[in-house]
């Protein structure tokens, strides 16, 4: 999918995301980016850094704090053939504008019998780990994925951030693009090592709906996504030394969910741990386990999940770190399924 061979050039995830947007905006005048503080601020999490300078305020557009109005505006513009990218600053704010998202953006194509397309990208920041409390730390991808009619992509690294953004902008369907603050490589937040990485310079497309095996292994499959991929990789690398061979599957997209990749990997390893920073129940972790169970795959151990407990996310660091699906809990779950 990569037309330029990966060079050594390294970018952080937010710059990789902005680069994809810039390239698509150069190529297609119908693309524009709209949201709160996406202009001179460059996006609270850097999603639009530098874009205002190149494209000006007609295409990189700051909005009032009126999510229902401006997301709806994006929908209407998309139905007229434009290709809006609209930023919901934190996914936690979905509650003030979910109707436009799930009853309109996601349903118009179906309700119109395919006659009206809504080629729109909704970008939004997710995730916790920096004590932002119960209203600014959620992932909620399970919520979005449960509601039909929108694709959901969740990059974990700079190259995928670029490639999935390119694919999302080109997709004729609404795509929700959820970027974890902890993978953006922001200067003002603890960075994980892989939030800066090699990113292809030219056109780079990562197809939506294909998971990636980011580490091969033979004993247990960790199905995960977003920031948790890195925690899983850290643990996998550490356990490798002990002779536990962990495969890490980065879902990259929830809708479509690459069920075949899950089944293929778990079919090989016979063990499954799902690591999910979203709330545990009625969400992604259950869906992944059910996917394996309903195919009747014979497992060597009961599958296990490491997720946010079904509780609001606490502020105090000691409490938040107790609920986040981080290294210790992942390691413990892997050891448990290994028996």
């Amino acid at each position, binding site marked *: 999918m990569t037309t330029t061979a990966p060079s050594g050039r390294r970018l952080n995830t937010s710059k990789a995301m902005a680069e994809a947007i810039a390239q698509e905006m150069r190529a297609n005048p119908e693309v524009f980016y709209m949201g709160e503080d996406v202009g001179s601020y460059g996006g609270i999490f850097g999603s639009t850094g530098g874009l205002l300078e190149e494209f000006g305020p007609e295409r990189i*557009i700051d909005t009032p704090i009126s999510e229902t109005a401006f997301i*709806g505006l994006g929908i209407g513009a998309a139905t007229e053939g434009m290709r809006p990218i609209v930023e919901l600053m934190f996914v936690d704010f979905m509650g003030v504008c979910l109707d436009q998202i799930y009853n309109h953006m996601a349903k118009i194509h179906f309700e119109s019998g*395919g006659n009206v397309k809504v080629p729109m990208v909704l970008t939004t920041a997710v995730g916790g780990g920096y004590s932002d409390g119960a209203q600014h730390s959620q992932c909620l991808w399970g919520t979005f994925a449960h509601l039909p009619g929108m694709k959901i992509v969740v990059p974990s690294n700079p190259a995928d951030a670029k490639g999935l953004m390119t694919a999302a902008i080109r997709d004729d369907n609404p795509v929700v693009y959820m970027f974890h603050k902890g993978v953006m490589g922001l200067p003002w937040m603890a960075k994980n090592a892989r939030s800066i990485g090699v990113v292809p310079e030219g056109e780079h497309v990562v197809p939506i709906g294909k998971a990636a095996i980011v580490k091969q292994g033979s004993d247990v499959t960790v199905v995960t996504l977003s920031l948790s991929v890195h925690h899983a990789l850290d643990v996998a690398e550490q356990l490798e030394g002990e002779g536990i061979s962990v495969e890490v599957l980065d879902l990259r997209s929830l809708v479509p969910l690459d069920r075949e990749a899950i089944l293929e990997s778990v079919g090989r390893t016979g063990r499954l741990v799902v690591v999910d920073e979203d709330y545990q129940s009625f969400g992604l972790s259950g869906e992944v386990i059910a996917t394996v169970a309903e195919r009747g795959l014979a497992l060597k151990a009961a599958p296990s999940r490491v997720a946010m407990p079904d509780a609001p996310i606490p502020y105090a660091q000691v409490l938040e770190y107790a609920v986040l699906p981080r290294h210790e809990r992942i390691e413990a779950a892997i050891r448990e399924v290994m028996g």
Partner: protein
Amino acid sequence: MTTVTDAPVPEPTETGVGHQLADEVRLDLYRTMVLARTYELAILREYHADKGPGFDIGKGLIPGEMHLAAGQEPVAAGVCAHLVPGDAVTATHRPHHFAIAHGVDLDKMTAEIFGRETGLGRGRGGHMHLFDPDAHFSCSGIIAEGYPPALGQAFAFKRRGSGNIAVAVTGEGAANQGAFHESLNLAAVWKLPVLFVVEDNEWGISVPRTASTAVPSNADRAAGYGIPGHRVEDNDVDAVYEKAGEFIERARRGEGPALLEVATLRLFGHFEGDAQGYRPELVDVPKLDAIPRYESRLIEAGVLDDALRQEIAEAASERVEAAITFAKDSPLPSADEATKYVFTEEA
């Protein structure tokens, strides 16, 4: 976002002479209203034809909720008379009169209401979800949530310099929903070419306007967005026509949005099956019907006579029955394809 469009402004449509509209304009308004009414009476007939014994909302060739706009035709006729190809309308759960006045394909719309594969949405949408991309028409069953997408259509028109505008419709009940406020403000700040229309039929289902709305006129709210607002009293189609024309021309000139409220009338229940026990003086409602009143005015003014009236009625009836026949003759969608169109077909 604050630059004024340098789009070519479409020629203004013919407006009235002094305070008397031209005869042809008035006849057109009348024709539109009659067509919409004829349509809804036919839908009423078809809707109830097979709901029995008793009334089962899920039964019949047209199942589900049915919100008729009978009585509210002056709003749609007066506004849409000014629209030109490329202009957009986003309507509500009570969309037929606007769809008809805006020229939505009547066959396809009727087929949609009958849940047929030939329908606007191939039977997926239903009467609250009519999408006609040719007419740039859409509607939504969620109160006030049709406003924001209209902004986006207006945004696209402005960007492209097409000179087109978008009309966004809600009821007076919907004017207390957050989306109403956000949309008016955003359209005003970005000077988008939108006409916001509020159909005040005095009721939000069973809740009277006085119990839902803190001010007597939503036009009073326009000042909160620095845009012009106006309220037309008495369901007067001529007055709607005049004011809508002024606001629409203004929007086409790039001067931004405006708000038009019309005091109108819900002739029937909120939806079919609503016994309206909450509504006082129910027996007097039919006397307030704007269509016979307009008819009399046109006859008095010598614009309409009995023969022409008859001709218009027959033309409407023929058109409507043809649409209903088209719908009934159309195939049902295939159960195998119930989940088709969630996403676009891959290339």
